[in-house]
Every structure is written in structure tokens, then in C-alpha cells.
């Protein structure tokens, strides 16, 4: 049931989702990391980052809100510790990068050139853009294009570059087209939706960061809609689908909508072996429906009923 990230073949269409599996180590007791499509790392930035104060999490119906704030070791720590660890185990790292300036992203991509075990780069353009008055790159087709073009130019030509899109936009197809034109080899969809929870006892926002990212099965229909719309408009652009996938049948829906691979995020918190389980369930679901390969199923839901 292999597929490809860009043009790089991977043994499984099931990956982890950025921010939900750390840098892979903690999942080792529960899944064979080398059998995954890739470990998509937590977003790394140029410098180590503490992240936000607690509380950082609130449970919501079929989901959760988080305001971690991109806690991480910075690119030096990633290169020294985490990527060699993953490479030693034969696991592929799909490195998520984040920054506040276009130059940050380009520098991160440069630092990742030729690093063993790095399958490719996921560009997290849902970070605050200080150059654009608090907007996020992924909400502006021009800013999104600039980041992706800079990363594609700086990155190792052998490493596919995927842009991670936010659903919090009026027309996600416009953003998708813009980053595809800028050279993105694929699209990761979707990032979290911006949300808020207020504690009725304290009558104040629960999270230290006030607002946070909503994830989990609660957002699956939104994610699926985004994948559907973008695949409809840009059928040749590979899509890594994510957003509330908890089972093989959930993953199958993303494939039928147009994703050629999927990432498992919040479900890992509930079930650390979910990536391996979902791989098996997806394989069984495809076989049960008579698909000879995953590729045959990609975008199947767009075909006319009598085709």
C-alpha cells in the first residue's frame, strides 16, 4: 500500500501529523517508525522555543484545543539529536518548519539540505507573520507564495516541499493555487482551526494563550471538504490529508476525496498505536472495496456515479 510524497516513494500512506508525535521517539514502544510513511516532526524554528504558559489544552467535544506555542529544540537541536535518532532506525523524517519571516523558512530549508533521513519539508505557514500585522502566511495568497517560493528555492531539490494550509480562510483553493504556482510539490491539509473555550467557573479563557487550535474528529468534515475542493480544482497536486482521522475508514474518506497520503494527529493522544492500526484498517478497507492499489482510490469520490 505504498504511495509517494511528491515523487519520493514511501512504504505507507500513513504518516504522523506535525505537533502530535513530537520527534517520533516517544512512539517507538507503540509503532514501527520505519514502517510509517514518515514521522512528520513538530515544527522546528531557528532558535529553541519555550512555547506558551499553561494551561495549554482544553478537551472539547470529539476534539481538543491547544495553545502549545511551538515548543521545540530549534534547528540545531533537531539536527544534532532528533534527525540522527530517526535515521538510525530507518525512519523517514518529514520536517515541519516554521518561522516569522520568509528568510527564517529559507534558512531552515537550507540547513536541511542533504541531511540523512530527511524525506522532505512541510512548510507550516500557519504561524504568526510579524511582517504582516499578525496575519498568518496561509491566510494571504501572496505571503504564502513568497514563503513557499523561498523554501523551494533554498531546499534540496531531492526533498519535496509541502505547504501546510489553514482552513481559516475564505477560499482555500486560492491559497492552494498560489503555493502550487510557487513550486510546492504538494499540500498538507489541514492545520487546526482557531478556537476558544471559556471556563464558566472563572469566566475567563481556559488557555494561557487565550485562543488555540481545534483538532480531532470534530474538524474532520471541514478537513475533508478542504481536500475535496482543492483536489477538484488542482487534481494533479498531491495532497497529504489530515484533520480528525481516527480509523482506517476515516483515512479512506480522505483518499476518496483526493489525498494520496494521510497524517494522524490528535488520535495519537488517544491511541499511540493509531498510525499502525490505521494503516492496517485502510489496507483492509481498500481491499474490501476492490481497489488494486491506493492510487486507484485517490479522488474516486469525484468520479461520476456511473463511471
Amino acid at each position, binding site marked *: 500500500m505504498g504511495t509517494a510524497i511528491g515523487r519520493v516513494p514511501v512504504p505507507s500512506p500513513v504518516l504522523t501529523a*506535525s*505537533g*502530535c*508525535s513530537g520527534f517520533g*521517539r*516517544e*512512539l*517507538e*514502544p*507503540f509503532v514501527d517508525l520505519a514502517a510509517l510513511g514518515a514521522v512528520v516532526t*513538530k515544527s522546528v*524554528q531557528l*532558535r*529553541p*522555543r*519555550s*512555547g*506558551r*504558559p*499553561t*494551561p*495549554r*489544552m482544553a*478537551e472539547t*467535544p*470529539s*476534539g*481538543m484545543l*491547544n*495553545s*502549545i*506555542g*511551538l*515548543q*521545540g529544540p*530549534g534547528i540545531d537541536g533537531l539536527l544534532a539529536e532528533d534527525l540522527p535518532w530517526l535515521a538510525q532506525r530507518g525512519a523517514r523524517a518529514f520536517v515541519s518548519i516554521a518561522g516569522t519571516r520568509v528568510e527564517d523558512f529559507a534558512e531552515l530549508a537550507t540547513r536541511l539540505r542533504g541531511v540523512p533521513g530527511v524525506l522532505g519539508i512541510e512548510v507550516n505557514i500557519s*504561524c*504568526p507573520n510579524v511582517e504582516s500585522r*499578525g496575519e*498568518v502566511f*496561509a491566510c494571504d495568497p501572496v505571503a504564502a507564495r513568497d514563503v513557499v517560493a523561498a523554501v523551494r528555492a533554498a531546499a534540496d531539490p531531492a526533498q519535496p516541499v509541502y505547504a501546510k494550509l*489553514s482552513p*481559516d480562510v475564505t477560499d482555500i483553493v486560492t491559497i492552494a493555487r498560489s503555493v502550487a504556482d510557487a513550486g510546492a510539490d504538494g499540500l498538507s491539509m489541514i*492545520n*487546526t482551526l*482557531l478556537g476558544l473555550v471559556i471556563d464558566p467557573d472563572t469566566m475567563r479563557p481556559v488557555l*494561557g*494563550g*487565550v*485562543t*488555540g*487550535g481545534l483538532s480531532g*474528529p470534530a474538524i474532520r468534515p471541514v478537513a475533508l471538504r478542504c481536500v475535496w475542493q482543492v483536489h477538484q480544482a488542482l487534481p494533479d497536486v498531491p495532497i497529504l490529508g489530515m484533520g480528525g482521522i481516527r480509523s482506517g475508514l476515516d483515512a479512506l474518506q480522505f483518499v476518496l476525496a483526493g489525498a494520496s497520503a494521510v497524517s494522524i494527529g*490528535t*488520535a*495519537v*493522544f*488517544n*491511541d*499511540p498505536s493509531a498510525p499502525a492500526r490505521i494503516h492496517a484498517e485502510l489496507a483492509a478497507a481498500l481491499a474490501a472495496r476492490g481497489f488494486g492499489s491506493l492510487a486507484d482510490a485517490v479522488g474516486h469520490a469525484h468520479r461520476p456515479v456511473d463511471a
Partner: protein
Amino acid sequence: MTGGLLTEPAPAAPWPPVQRVVTVAGRRPVGAYVELSLAAPEVAERAVPGQFVAFAVGGPTSAHLLRRSIAIAGVGGGQVQVVVSAHGPGSSWLAGLAPGDVVDVVGPLGRPFPMPPPGTPALLVGGGYGAAALVGLAGRLRATGSEVAAVTGAASAGRLCSVQELGSLAAPFVVMTDDGSAGRRGWVTDAVAELVNGAGVVYACGPMGMLRAVADVATAAGVPSYVAVEESMACGIGVCMTCVLPVVGGDGRTRFARSCVEGPVFGGDRVRFADVGTLPADVVGADAMGLTPPAVPTPAGSPPTPVAPPEADPGTPGASS
């Protein structure tokens, strides 16, 4: 001893965790709580006092996705005991499990209580159902030749836990309640202040306010302490980054440490209790959040350089992971 602190960071557990769907073998009410016994031999044989387990709640299609982390209260005969305090939908579901029911559990998780040199007299301090996590430790300390004293306390008699189990292993053994409905009236710290000077090490498990008070008393007396913290965790295994608190590392620098994998057991003088829930400017990586880095320590006598107050970037869209 590192950086003037009395404790070393707690070492990692000897064995990795497992994930299993296990059967509830027993259930009994314990005061205001419910004790569950789980037939979980692989968890039981790996568990060391101080560790915890994380439960999925509500079954495979539950709308409650986040795991519930609960300290291990005891192991034996292939079983693991936990004491559940039902206060929300997840813990209420767990407390309602009956013998024969199955539940998905991951464990043992977290760092155990480090053992002192054999024969070191120890003082154990439990608050509410946190006392349950100390029973296994008391037995282990006794087995290695330590004298064990214990204090357990709660708001009222019904909120006490593991009184008989701890009482049979510890001497002296003091029970404290806020309202005097059992044992002595007062706080556990009253008794800790009386007993701390006879101890070579203090261990505590309970609410954060109690841990802070116990750690302060121990540190002031020059006695190392280890505390098992209570922080809300989404996953329990170290991937979600929600359960962090500021902890001084072996190198003397403060980091946002995950209480699930770098804890739950921390040196009592390493946890910056006063700063929990804030972003201190000297936490590693706080500068990348826009905080002014702390001033370089100045020689004694010269005035300290002012440090900007902590200020995150609340409400900035999309800064979540």
C-alpha cells in the same frame, strides 16, 4: 548535588511502556474514591513506585479523546491497582467500570521515585488520593532497610486514602484532616515540620499546593525531597506537550519539562512552583517568545539588571502546534 540544589533529576524508568486492552478484575469503594484492580500483568511487572498509567475513556468511539493519567497505587499477582477520583466525565466513566469490563491502558509511564542509599530514613507525605501512590514506595523503602515515617492528609475523613496500607508500613504514621474528622486537625505540613528533621529524604504525592508546601519545608530543613506532580495531560506519553511546568535541569537551567516523561517525579527543589502557569523569562527558549532574556548574574552587592515581566503573545492566531 547540582547548582546548589539538594536533589538530582529523577532517572528514567527502566522499562518502556506497553499499551493493552485489559480486564477490570476488581472494584471497591475507598472513602470518596474507587479503587480498580486491572488484570494487566505486563504493566504490573514493569511498574516502579511513582509511575502512572493512562486510560482511554468511554470506548473506541468516545467523544472524550484525551487519556486520563492516574498514579499506580499498587501491583501484585499480575494486577495493577489505581484509585480513581470521579470529578469529570472521563474519571466518572472510569470509576463506573465493573469487574469484567475492559479498558485500554498505557503504562507504566513516567519516572519513578529515585531510591535513597540503603538505610536512609524516609518521610512520605500523601494528600487525598495521592497517598495511594506512596504505598508501593513505602514497601520498597522498608525492603531496602529504610525506616519509613508517613503523613497523610485530606480535607475530611472521607477524602483520605490508603490509610491502613500506609499505616501498616510506616511509623510514626500521622493522619491529618482540615476539619478534624479523622486524626489530627490541621495540614500535613504541620506534621511534616515535626518529622522532617529525622528524615534523610522526603517523598510527596498530592495536590500541587501541598507539594509546594512540603518541598519548601524539606528544602528549608536541608532535606532532599521528591514530589509526584499533578498536571493535566492529554496523552501521558510525551508527545502532546500540554503538561509542562518550569523545572531546573541538571545543568541549572530552567526548562518547560513535560510532567509525563520528565516527571511526574521531580526533585522538590527543582520545580519552580511559584512560576507554574507563567512563562518566566529565564526558561530556555523564552527569548524566542519575545521575552527579554534574563540579566547575567551580577556580582554580590551590585544592583540587579531589571528583567522585563513575562508577556506571551496572547491571541495570536495560528501559533498553536
